[in-house]
């Protein structure tokens, strides 16, 4: 995943999460669980996870549906030309200052109209890597504590996506490390933990 073009612009933001307006959903972009980045300056950025993609209500679209004569050109016009209101909700999970990436909430949220890009594979690796063989998953606590996001599904989608960004030979090691961190954080809720682990289980080597 190497999309560096902006997929949307910040509509409103708080320290813990923010919303982004998006013109149109490109094929496969953006997806629930994608890690995204909002560059604030040349050297700083905010990282987050997409936890909701909402196609807003639109009276014009309602009218077209009621009329029931949807020519292919209309569908193309609505999807490609109109400012179809699509809103992405992003859970903030980290930030970058110079080359240092921290897990946790940033000192300042993004501002209105800051650009949102999908994190590249290199960004995803940088976000979780400590050394070639060790990883950090401090951000998982923020996800687990989010009350307004479907946290379990978000963890599963984002960890599987992050694993895909790793070289094939270390994906298993990455997921095992993530599973261990989840086990530590969720030791009092074994049923829920098991549900998540079952779905991020690495393939047997």
């Amino acid at each position, binding site marked *: 995943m190497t999309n560096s073009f902006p997929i949307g612009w910040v509509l409103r933001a708080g320290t813990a999460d923010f919303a982004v307006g998006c013109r149109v959903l490109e094929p496969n972009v953006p997806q629930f669980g994608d890690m995204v980045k909002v560059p604030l300056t040349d050297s700083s950025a905010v990282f987050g996870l997409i936890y909701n993609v909402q196609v807003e209500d639109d009276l014009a679209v309602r009218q077209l549906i009621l009329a029931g004569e949807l020519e292919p050109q209309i569908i*193309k016009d609505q999807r490609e030309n109109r400012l179809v209101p699509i809103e992405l909700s992003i859970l903030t999970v980290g930030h970058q200052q110079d080359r240092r990436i921290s897990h946790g909430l940033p000192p300042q949220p993004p501002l209105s109209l800051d650009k949102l890009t999908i994190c590249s594979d290199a960004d995803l690796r940088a976000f979780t890597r400590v050394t070639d063989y060790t990883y950090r998953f401090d951000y998982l606590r923020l996800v687990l504590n989010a009350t307004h996001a479907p946290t379990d599904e978000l963890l599963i989608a984002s960890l599987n996506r992050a694993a895909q960004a790793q070289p094939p030979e270390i994906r298993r090691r990455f997921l095992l490390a993530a599973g261990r961190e989840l086990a530590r954080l969720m030791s009092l809720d074994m049923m829920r933990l098991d549900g998540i682990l079952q779905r991020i289980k690495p393939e047997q080597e």
Partner: protein
Amino acid sequence: MTLKLNQVARQIQTMGQDLAQQKPERDEALVRAKRLLHNFATEFSTLANLIDRAEKIDDRFGWVGAAPAGEPLDAAFSLPNCPEQITVIASDGSQILPDQHAIYPYYLINIGSITYQHGSNQTPDPFNPEPDLNYQPFDDQGRLISSAEINVQRDLGELAVLLNRVQQLDTPPQPVVTLLDGPLALRVIDLPFDQQKQYQTAYIEILTDLQRQQAWPAGYIDRPRSTYLLSLLHLASLAPETLTEDALRRNPFRQLTDLDLFGFLEPGQRSALFAIKAKNLQRYAALGHAIHFFYLNVGRDKNTPVLARVEVPGWLAADKTSLEALHAVLVRQARLTGGYPYVLARADELAVISSEERDALEMMIGIEMRRQGLKPEISRKLQSKKSYRS
């Protein structure tokens, strides 16, 4: 809440009662008008004679009405097949009028347009020319430009954009309809005479260019309130020897509009064609663009007609094949949204200036003025209004 709804409630009740009381009289007038429509349906020479006399009554009076265009007045024409491939281009405009209380009394015109190629599977092509910001909105005597003149400039811009879009088409051989929201003729009546002539000349030149490009200009008027045909029917009801300005002014059908006459149009049908007779449209006729119109039921439901008036130039009205294609594609376009041409709805969306956009524009103007060492300020009155209304 400043409007005392409890106080206006009594007036609303009176209004409802008055409207209900007027209904029998209105219904009776409608019956008489419809009878005249049928009785004079093919009395073309009688009507031509009456129109001729009415137009000559007094130069200052200027009779305005409809004239038959060779089709029985009460005719209805069924929905023709729509051409497989036909292009419809619409444009619409919006404006910010100059406000002497704003930081500067600028005005701005924004035009939106969209090209929709039926049968091509191509994505419709929206287009916004650069908005026209005018910061010298004063006439020779230093008076602020009138809103009527800005509206005329906007309408002229809408037609110019249609011509521009026609010229940009890659595949001109298929029919191209160029559609405006509102009457086809430019409304210049509120301007001084020399300006009327100047703007009308420029507008008619573009109409001629569209004709040269083989595009079909049309104006689409949703829920029209015009009474051209009722004027004709009133004229028809008068004996030739009683024709006077006074008699013509005493129109018994003033509670009605032409729209009331066309409830008989079945879904998809159009009415007969008529020419508009009006002094201020004579230049159009003289240059080959005599304004004609027909009514059109774009609805699907037999019990709920959705009527519009469509204006076209005379040369298009005379070409029955083109007129059929126009008839068909307008119904097709209107049915896409449930009663109003899709391209016009989109052109409006592309043109409209929201209050947020206007605020942003004024902020940009303020920043630039400050950068240039100027001191932009809104008036005390506007400041006060903003304070009290927020």
